[in-house]
Structure formats: C-alpha cells, structure tokens
C-alpha cells in the first residue's frame, strides 16, 4: 500500500507524505510549493485561473510518450496527481526566455489585470503540445478560461498564431508503482480520520467499496471537488476510480459502444460523435476543456443530478447501465437508474461500471438540444433529447428524455404516447407538445422559470419536426466556439 503521493514536476520527483487527501492541487501549489503563478479565481472549476497541465502515459502514442491535459487544479485532489507529471506556468520560461505563447501574449497585449493570464497561457500551451496539434477550435480550448478585462480579442489572436510543438519528453518510470495508494490523515479541525483509496483493478475496487460502502467514489472530481471546496463536506473516505484500467476502456462492437465508467469526456467525444453527431456537438459545450479532460461520463450518470447533460441523450438513445457490486453485475435501462431527486437504484457497495450506448439505425432522427444562459460552459436550464423512427410518414418508435424538467433526467412518456403510431405532421407535433405539459412540471430557479422550461421543451419538439422536414433549414444558432 502506497502512503506517499509522488509526482513529477519540471524533471524532479516530488513526494508528499501525510497530506490531507482532500487538499487540492491548487492549495498545495500555492502553499507548500510556493508556486503562486497558478491562481484561485473561483475554486469550483469554472474560471480556469488555476489551469495546469497534467501528464500521463499516452495510451496511443509511442511507448513512454506522455499526453498532457489542461485541468483545473482547484478541484483536483492532490492524490489524483500520484504517478503523473505536472507543468505549471512557472515551467514554461526557459533560461529567462519566455515561451513563444507567453511572448505572443505580451506582444499582442493579451493581459490587462493579469490574474487570469497564467491559466490562459497554460490552456494555449496545452493546445500547442496536444497530440492532435493546434487543431482544436480556439473557442473550445478557451471556453473554460474567463477573462474579465480584455474581451478576449488579443488572446484569440495569440491562439491563432500559436504553432504546434512536440510535447516535452518526460520519463514517468521513476514513479512506476503497481500498489494501491492508501492515504490516511487525522483531521484535527473536523476530528475525523480521512482516507484516500485508489484501487488498481475493478475487482479491487469492488472489494474496497464493499468494505467501505459509505465511501465517496471520485473519478475526475469535477463534481466531488466542489463538495469539498464549496459545500465543505467532510468526506471521510474517498475511493478513486481513476487508476482502474478496466473502467477506462471504450469498446466498440457492431451493435453498441461500451463506455467504462472511468472514461473521460475528452476520450469519448469522438466515438460518441460517430454514434450521435448531435450529442457529440453538445458535448463540446458541456463544461470546458479542463472539465472534459477530467470529468467522466460515468460520474455524470452516477451522481444522479437532474441537470447532468449526458443522461437525457443516453436515455433517448436507449442506453443500458451496468452496475457492479462485489462480483455481481446487473444491467438496467438507464432511465430506471434515476428513482427520484437525489435517489438512484444503487445498493450499498454498488457502483457504476459502464454504460452501453446502442448504435442507431441510420434513418433514425436523433437530436439533442442544450439551453443555457451562455453557450459555453454553462449548466443547462433545459436539455432535451429526441430519438424517432419515422416509417412511411408515421412515427414508428420514439424515445424522448429531458434534463432540467424534473427531479431526475426523465423520459417524456405522455409525449411519446401522443406521437407513436401517428403521422409525423404538425398536428401530431402539437399533440406531442401537449403531452410534454403532462410529463413535466418543471420548477423555477436561477437558471430559468418554469414557463421558459415548459415552452422551450415544446419548441424543441417543433424544431425536431422542422429539421426533419427540411434538413437545410436554419433552425439553430451555431455557437462561436464551434468555429475555428
């Protein structure tokens, strides 16, 4: 059992013993390490001022190559860095000379107050050294970096001029360790013992979780991180699933895509885009690059949030959830997992192992809509997903699900009933819209009123119809971030 967190920073192995496992990477950087270039703007993974790059072995590239991901260090727990490499803004300038990204930011007047600047530099540098080169759209790369001063113009100009470059070669072998990280910390403030357990295999995970059914499972910590930094929950035992190789598998068969619970958005978006192009497009607006580089689809399902963006689309697609407890596995339609607000069909010691997303018939209509105050990196007010088979002008089969309309992600049964077997016409759409009013009694909150939610849910169905009648009709605003 490993009791020491070890990571690589600028060629040196750093060891941390006796750390509180819910210490964030940002706290560790700014405190004991005195790397204060990385800033805290929000401590919830929304502003990007704390962006750093984390490197881990690149599964695809040549052996020994490291893939770097931009992440929000404010919601990464320090133990998550175990076995990985780290770069901060201080890593870039070599021998007193600024990195070209930094120099361009100076030359183009890309900083004003300068507080968000280190995070922006890291996002742009992360793009430059990404395996795919500097191909990612600038708006997508920077959606998670808020700047309040510049209006972004000079930064975009810098981004467009940054050339791809090889990622720095890093030798992770000194960190090689097959044992399970098992940290324990006496918290004097809350009077509890905190533990961090990071099993390496799914069997080990199943065992550990059965032994500690009250533990909190954490993957990318894009949600659990906030339980600590915002809600200040004690979380005595945390079980990390990020080191479980089996959970990171993405397996494609003739019928379906099996997405391991530990698969991050960033690693799934390409495969999902092939299955469901509309969902792929929406995923690029889900969170930010930093969030998608950490967060997992499994986590988005397992946390049971009524406003998670993956469940509605996966429910509409007819996805199956795989649960695991001990050596036992069971499967269920995804929609059955969500019982009520804050309540899922998950027994003590049982965890989400995978979600199986079926491939759809090419003729099927599959549409996803996400509505939020801001296009990028915003939580949905309403998220709607529609899967329809129209044969000979008649709705042969339909699955519709919404997020943000009820206490859970939920299917629109009355709407579906109004559509199925009916001619795919304006009149049927009107009937389906009336069904939605039966299906959902949404609430009003800071994101939208109940009236707005109800009206837009109806209008989404209208859009599905309009788009099916004329695929070339301009029915949606394409967010700027989707462009180069």
């Amino acid at each position, binding site marked *: 059992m490993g009791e020491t967190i070890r990571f690589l920073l600028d060629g040196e192995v750093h060891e941390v013993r006796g750390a509180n496992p819910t210490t964030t990477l940002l706290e560790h950087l700014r405190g004991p390490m005195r790397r204060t270039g990385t800033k805290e*703007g929000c401590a919830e993974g929304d502003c990007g001022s704390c962006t750093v790059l984390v490197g881990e072995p690149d599964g695809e590239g040549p052996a020994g190559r490291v893939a770097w991901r931009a992440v929000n260090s404010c919601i990464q727990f320090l133990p998550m860095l175990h076995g990985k490499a780290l770069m901060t803004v201080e890593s870039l300038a070599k021998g007193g000379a600024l990195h070209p990204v930094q120099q361009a930011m100076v030359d183009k007047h890309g*900083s004003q107050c300068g507080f968000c600047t280190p995070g922006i530099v890291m996002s742009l540098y992360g793009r430059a050294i990404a395996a795919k080169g500097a191909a990612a759209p600038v708006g997508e790369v920077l959606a998670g970096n*808020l700047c*309040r*001063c510049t209006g972004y*113009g000079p930064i975009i100009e810098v981004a467009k001029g940054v050339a791809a470059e090889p990622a720095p070669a890093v030798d992770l072998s000194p960190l090689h360790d097959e044992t399970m990280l098992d940290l324990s910390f006496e918290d004097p*403030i809350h009077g509890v013992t905190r533990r961090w357990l990071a099993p390496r295999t799914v069997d080990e995970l199943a065992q550990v979780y059965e032994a500690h059914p009250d533990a909190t499972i954490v993957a990318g910590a894009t949600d659990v991180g906030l339980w600590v930094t915002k809600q200040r929950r004690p979380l005595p035992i945390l079980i990390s699933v990020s080191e479980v190789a089996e959970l990171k598998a993405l397996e494609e068969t003739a019928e379906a895509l099996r997405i391991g619970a530990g698969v991050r958005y960033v690693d799934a978006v390409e495969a999902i885009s092939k299955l469901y192009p509309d969902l792929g497009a929406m995923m690029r607006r889900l969170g930010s690059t930093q969030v998608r580089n950490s967060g997992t689809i499994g986590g988005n399902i397992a946390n049971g949030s009524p406003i998670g963006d993956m469940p509605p689309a996966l429910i509409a697609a007819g996805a199956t959830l795989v649960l695991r407890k001990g050596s036992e596995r069971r499967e269920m339609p995804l929609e059955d997992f969500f019982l009520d607000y804050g309540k899922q069909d998950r027994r003590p010691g049982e965890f989400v192992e995978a979600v199986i997303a079926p491939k759809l018939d090419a003729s099927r209509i599959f549409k996803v809509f996400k509505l939020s105050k801001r296009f990028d990196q915003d939580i949905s007010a309403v998220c709607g997903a529609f899967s329809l088979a129209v044969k000979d002008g008649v709705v042969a089969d339909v699955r519709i699900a919404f997020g943000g309309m009820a206490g859970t992600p939920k299917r629109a049964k009355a709407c579906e009933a109004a559509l199925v077997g009916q001619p795919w016409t304006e009149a049927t759409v009107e009937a389906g819209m009336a069904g939605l009013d039966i299906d959902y009694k949404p609430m009003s909150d800071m994101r939208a009123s109940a009236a*707005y939610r109800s009206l837009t849910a109806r209008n989404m169905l209208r859009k599905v119809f309009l788009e099916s009648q004329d695929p070339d009709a301009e029915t949606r605003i394409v967010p*700027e971030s989707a462009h180069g």
Partner: protein
Amino acid sequence: MADSAATVVETTPFQGVHAPLPHDSAVRHVAGSAIYIDDIPEPVGLLHVHLGMSARAHARITKLDLSAVRAAPGVVLVLTAADIPGENDVSPVIHDDKLFADGEVYCVGQSLFAVAATSIAAARAAAGLAVVAYEDLPAAVDIAAARDMDLKIETSQRMARGDAQAALAAAPRRVQGQFAIGGQDHFYLEGQVALATPGEDGDVHIWSSTQHPSEVQHLVARVLDRPHTAVTVEIRRMGGGFGGKETQASLFAAAAALVAVKTGRPAKCRPDRDEDMVMTGKRHDFEAAYDVGFDDDGRLTGLSLELASRCGATTDLSLAINDRAMFHADNTYYLPAVEIISHRFKTHTVSNTAFRGFGGPQGMLAIERVMDAVAAATGLDPLEVRRRNLYGGEGRNLTPYHQTVEDNVAPQLIDELAASCAYDARRREIEAFNRASPVLKKGIALTPVKFGISFTTTHLNQAGALIHLYADGSIMLNHGGTEMGQGLHVKVAQIVAQAFQVDMARIKVTSTVTDKVPNTSATAASSGADLNGMAALNAAETIKARLVAFAAKKWGVEPHEVAFTPDGVRVGGETFEFGWFARQAYLARISLSATGFYATPKIHYDRATHTGRPFFYFAYGAACSEVLIDTLTGEMKVTRADILHDVGKSLNPAIDLGQIEGGFIQGMGWLTTEELVYDGEGRLRTHAPSTYKIPTCGDRPAHLDVRLWKAGRNVEATVHRSKAVGEPPLMLAISVYSAINHAVASVGDYKVLPRLDAPATPEAILMACEDVKARTHV
C-alpha cells in the same frame, strides 16, 4: 564615465506618449511572476480571518453565542462589534456600513463577527459553530417592496430644464413605457483580499486589493481610533477592480487590521468567491419609466423620465451613482423640455456600489430605449431618430443640468461609423433575411455614447505624484492612482519618460502606498490617467526646472539652451548621458525628488439644484452591433460589432484599444448573460461562475472591429490632449441590446416595441418574442 561627460547614441527610436507600449507588468503576468496580495509569502504566525455572515435580510439579533467558535481548534481570536476600539463603520460617506452587525442585521451576508485562526479551514469550520438567533423584521428585498414600504436612502431627486409636463401635453405624439435594467457583479478574477502586519505602537501596514488606498487608510484608522499616520495601505496591483474595489475593500482590510493589532500577529482576510459575491455590492439594478412627446419626424419635444434604483441596505456611493444616472439620461441628445426624477430605494440586500460607468449606463440605456420607442411609434429607422435628436445647432447644446456641450463630436462619429460599417445596406439585408427565415432572426443597431469626465463630487478631482531621480539616472515614479489592469502605470510612466525624454526602462513604477502620496482619491471615474498623469507631469517638470537651472549655471549657458533629448541632456553644444548628468546634479546638491499635484479646472456643481458644470469634458464613441436570435429558444449571438471611439490623442493606443474592447464585452455581459437572481428572502442565488455567467471567449463577436477615432483631440487642456477611456466603452454595448430589440420586433413585422428587460437572457428574449406575437396576432 565617472567624471567625463559622455555623448551617447541611442539606437532604438524614442517611445514616450502615444506609443503602443505593452502593459508594464505584461511579462510578469504571462510568466506568473506578477505578485498579487495572496501571492506574497505568508509571514510567520499568520492568522486567517473569516467573517461570520447574516443569514437574514432584516432582523434583530436575539442571540449571538460564539463560545463554541472560540473553543474550536486553531482559533486564536473572535471579534464582534463590542471589540472595536473606534467607530464601527467602514462606509465611504455617511457612516452607515457596520464592520460588524450591532444588534440588528440589514442584509443577508452582512458581517456579524470575525474568526481568526491558524488556517482558513479552521476559521471557516469554527464560524459554522456560531449560534445566532434572529427575530425577523419587515424586509424589502427588491425595488417594488421598497417602493411599497417607502424606504429610500435619500429624498427623490429632480433634474429639470424647461417645462416637461407642458411640453408633453402639447406634444403632437406621445408614448409611455417602462422597463427593468438588471444589476451586475464585478467578477474581478482576483477577489477581495487584505493582509495586515502589525507595527510598533499599534500601527499597522495593510496590503489591500483596493482602488482607494487612502479611504481604506482613513476608515481603518477610524475603526482603530488612531490617526491616519498609524495606518499605511499599499497596493501594487489588483486582479481587476471595475469599481468593485472602490469602497468594498474596507470591510476586509479593517477586519484583518483589527486582528493584527489585537493579536500582534499578521492577519489575512480573503473571502472565497461565493463569500465575496454574497458580501459585496454590485451595479445597481434600475427600473425606468418614460413619457415622451415627439413630432412625426421623431424629434423629441418633451421627456419625463423616472428612474428607480435598488441601492441596498446602506448609502455607500449610491447618491453619486444615481446622480450620474441622471447626468447620462440625455446621452448625445438635446432634450428641449425635460425632467428626470430619480428614486433611490433602500432595500435589505447588499449595498450596491460603483461599477464601471457608475450609474451612467443605466441612465443612458433609458434614453436609448426612448429612441427605440419613438422609432417604433413613427416607423422611422432608429438611427434616423437618433440623428435627428443629437446635440448641435443653435440653442441645442444645453444639457438637463445646464452644462453647455462644447466638444460634441457625436455626429461625426456616427456618420463615419454608419458609412464604414454599411449600416443602411445591412439593415435592408437583415430585414430581407428576416422575411425569409422563420426561426432565426437578425437585428442591427447603431448607438452613440457621450460620457461626462470628472468626479461629480468636485473635491475628488485632485491627484498627487512623487518622483525620485536617483543619482544613477533611474527614476522612481509613484502616484496616487492604482493599477487594476487598465494600464494606468504604463501610461503615467510614458508621460514621465516623455518629459525627461528617457527610455521607459529607466522608470520604475512602484506600488501605490499612502505614505508616499497622501489624501488621494479613488482610481475611479475613468480619471486615473487624467489626474495622476498630470500630477506626475507636474512633478517631472519641477525636477526638470531644477536641472535646467543647475545646468545653465554649471556650464554657463542660457536656460533655453538646456534640452532633454532622447540622446541625453543637451547643454549648449554638448549632450550628456542622462545618468551621468543626474549624478552631476546630485554632486552639486540639487534636490532630485519632487511631488506633483493637479486639480481639474473649470468644474463646479450645485447638487441642490442639479445645475452646474460637473464635467471637464465628454468622451464619445459609437458602436454598431448585429445579432442573431432564435425565436424558439431565445438563444442569441452577437455576430458582428463595429466600434469607433474617441480617446482624444491616445496616450497609448494599444492600452486604449484593450479598454474599449474589454469594456464593450463587459457591457455586453451586463445586457445579455449576466443575471443576478435574489430569492424572496433576499438571498443571492447566483454567487459563483457556475450560476453567474460573464462572457466567455466564444461570446465575443466573430467580427469585432474596434477603431480609435483618428481626428480625436481633447479641446480641453488634458494631459497631452488625451481623453479618459475606462468607463465610456462599456456603454457601447447598448447597441447589442438595441439590436436584440430590432430582431425581436421582426417577429411582429416591426409594428410594436418589444417588451424587453435587461439583461436580454434567452428567457427574456423568448418571452419578448411571445409577447410581440400575442400583441400583433402573428
């Protein structure tokens, strides 16, 4: 070259004022080596201060039991109102902001007590153990409730010229309307923070992220019951301010200072993002109601405008902010007979405060809404209505506050911009597009900006500077202005470099600190470069005069034969290297240190009658925005914006362009995605970036063309004939709101004025579309 004069040859061309130099901290920003207050190495024994907050909007505190807090692990000190040696007040003007609540709370988030502990986690955990009981009192958490309860922070104000009611009664045509204007959180990326270090005799030094170090100094001294000399306040840079650190820093600085003085240990008070957003004031939300008379050509004949604002629980700067709303309710338009009534409502919510524009944006949005209303009523192009009502021509230059507009360039700016962005042709194309597009609709609008420059509280228009010329020729520059990202320090350094004709590398701008330049005004009202630049120039001129006299005497030439040049100091026929020359002056026992001072001339204002000349001059701009909306979801995208802005003769065109573009995007956020939501109990529900949405990179229009007006030159004798640039560009974003209005109106074939409140969120836009459909039976 200790004793021999050297003639040097400069290889790089001289760069002083008007050069597009980078921000003085740019290299440090990108390297992560720029030090913000929370980056300063923490002193040994540091205590972390957390403020316990009120959970109620308005209540009597019936119990405040902090025994468990005191006993919690790591806690060193707990402070309440009873522990304040001096006055329990951190307010800027009228002594009504408590450091700690005393018996009663007036808003959610109000500071109740402070916990100082060995870590912030310990302090926060301890604060959670407080036992507080309240007895609720009647609370007004919004404008409507305050109106019902008749709660105001001062008597409603009236500014008028001519007989508006008579003009309205006689008007050929007349429309009335009203709309709401949302507030805005500053969302500076660096939150509020203060680090206090105790000195001897109960003195204290405070690093405070503040736009107003002098005020923090004065308030902390009053809290500690000590003279101003006991408190030193310092700030090198803020990670953004935008008005949010003009008065709001005092609370955190005072809490940290009090802990430091009481314990003899250094103390830091840094609220996290949520605490910051809950505890600090924002831009005032407004309601505006208009009654406007006009003729068939869209020319206004009379206007009665009623403004109402949510000031929050205390006065803060709300009097001046609401005054500035009135001052800008004319914008660029001559109003023949006008009355502007301003209600300043007291609510049991956090006290609203300064925010870039300082009330001006709300007043300006109101008159621009009136222009759109007149256009809708007459069927005229809104730009044509705007043009017909501009200031200019015989008898058409007097503002509602009786200041004559003497520098009006709005007509030229509008004409140039309308031509360069092809407004007329695009408007026709857009209306054609809208006829053919059932779901998506476009809109376009061109709106002008005229913004008054000067603090309207006249005595604040003063500034000081301190320059040391060291014997090696390096120059230390200090002035009363603070750097929050706006590039003030580089601009002032450029002014000094220009004066001495030296390379910028010779000049070091040091942190703003109250023991170098005393009694300063806030860096606010866009005045930073105008005031401090002139003060620094005066200081430089004082030293130059001494050097000229010295050189004339030493080398036996006439004073006019001494000149500061990029190659060095020319004395008669010889040119001396600047550093060598400075050393000779030192050896000759010449004082090489000087203060400079500046007070803005010409201005005066009588608040009792709301007349006078509050502004030294006006800054102008114009913007044309184009938007695309989705009439089924209300989603909106700004697809294009063209901006032409007058900064006079720019001190630094790169910095000024950054201010304009940044201000525009920030204004766009105010009017589109940034929505502050309070619940019925007065709790802010949008207190972090997860729920409060400022623009991201993708919200910037794909086409954004920003230009400085080439003909710009301040007619007043400002520093190098420049104009202030901090606030005015924010209001260029009114063009976005007006363009959205145009797009929504297309749903009803432009027959009615959409009912559209700001911010125009997707929900506001969709509901406005629905309303237009209902009213026009589409």
